[in-house]
């Protein structure tokens, strides 16, 4: 195997056309991952709290929507947002935006369940005691429940963010110039080194995922959490 093709095109793999064009390659993968990780965390937290607090019809409706988001392939959701939203609502969504929204929605749906489970896993006595002390519902959440529940949910967040990093590769399908897309362009041009190129690309993703797993794993250890 000849890995010269990697070193010859390393800059393109790492940053795409930048600065001669928009940012791409591994750098764009990182940016997409960060954006959707943040969005999905916020969404998951909000929806998870809503899920654990709600009963009756609103709860069922929310559960149905979240269930839909977890049943649909990410690819299909990306197609919907990128191709059909403009036709239906007249909103023009750039590729990067479509992928971020799709990943945020799906990541948020999974995290909502994790957050809700984390909150529900606390002994009822905690929320009862908080109320007995006169704390309102939201204060009880903010000061008593969440600080205890969040560390328990940390492994779920880590798993979801690792999944997000991998799922950014699906942006390939709508022509976003992230790492998989850029690598395929190079492979198409040189033609004879697909194995080397895709091994290299896999290695880059692996490193990114490991950074999240190990980096956050260490932070979690400081809270003395046992990983799931």
């Amino acid at each position, binding site marked *: 195997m000849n890995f010269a093709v990697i070193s010859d095109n390393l800059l393109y793999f790492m940053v795409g056309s930048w600065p001669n064009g928009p940012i791409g390659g591994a750098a764009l993968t990182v940016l997409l991952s960060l954006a959707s990780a943040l969005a999905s965390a916020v969404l998951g937290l909000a929806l998870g709290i809503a899920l654990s607090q709600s009963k009756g019809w609103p709860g069922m409706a929310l559960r149905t929507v979240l269930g839909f988001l977890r049943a649909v392939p990410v690819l299909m959701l990306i197609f919907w947002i990128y*191709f059909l939203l403009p036709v239906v609502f007249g909103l023009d969504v750039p590729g990067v935006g479509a992928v971020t929204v799709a990943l945020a929605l799906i990541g948020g749906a999974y995290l909502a369940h994790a957050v809700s489970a984390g909150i529900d896993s606390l002994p009822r006595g905690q929320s009862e005691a908080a109320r007995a002390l006169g704390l309102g519902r939201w204060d009880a959440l903010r000061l008593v429940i969440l600080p205890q529940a969040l560390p328990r949910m940390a492994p779920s967040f880590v798993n979801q963010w690792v999944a997000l990093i991998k799922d950014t590769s699906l942006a390939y399908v709508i022509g976003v110039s992230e790492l998989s897309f850029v690598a395929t362009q190079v492979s198409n041009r040189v033609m004879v080194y697909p194995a080397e190129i895709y091994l290299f690309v896999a290695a880059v993703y692996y490193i990114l995922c490991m950074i999240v797993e190990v980096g956050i794993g260490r932070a979690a250890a400081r809270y003395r959490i046992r990983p799931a």
Partner: protein
Amino acid sequence: MALLVAACGGREGPDDRLAEIREAGVLKVAAFDSNPPFGFVDPETRRIAGLDVDYAQALADRLGVRLEVVPTNPANRIPLLTSGKVDLVLANFTITEERARQVDFSIPYFASGQQFIARKGVLTSPEQLNGLRIGVDKGTVNEINLRDKYPQATLIAYDDTPFAFTALRNGNVEAISQDGPKLIGVLAHAPNADEFEIPPFVISQDLIGVGVPKGQAALKAFVDQTLTELEASGEAQRIYDRSFGPQTRTPLARTYRIGQPAGAGASNLAPAA
């Protein structure tokens, strides 16, 4: 999420796209990124270049706006245009009646015929096609043509020509089908090109035009006029020579000129060497 939505903005509706382009200061064009010499990534500049991009640049220059090239594969050309994500499509876009229901076309600026690449000696006449595994590109007229004319052939559709050619080199298919000039471009860059050949027969004649959103009469008129002017000034010939001229890796005699009626001197392809 709200910020994202606000930043996206919306399109007013079928207003004058030409005026919108001038106002925005940018012309968005969909072009291929893996099909030399029509559209490919230049390793030096790390940007998309090629014959189609040269025409797009000429259009943008006439308008006095910046050119933004959006990479595409064949299947995404129409969706990108109809959803308003690009203003024009310059990506070896064959003019067909079926497509003309969804998009408008400019006058043709290139002509070619559908041909094949196969290992030497495998394919000598069109009748053999019915028994072969043939690689085609998703979303191209080539695919639809083959399915209509040679229904017994086994067709495997790929995202783009390089995928199909890789499959050919690995033995996953026995032949691939595309426009003749594109196939010449493929072989020019292939390392073991001498194992393959382009059989000299053609199974259809195609005219290639610029894809314009439906109903945008002013934009279409502008494109038509620019193309005609480019031919008259000799710029079209210069653009052609840059990609298919005698000094390039894909020398090919030019037999179609912009403004020629359809059918006259149709195929741009001299018999394959």
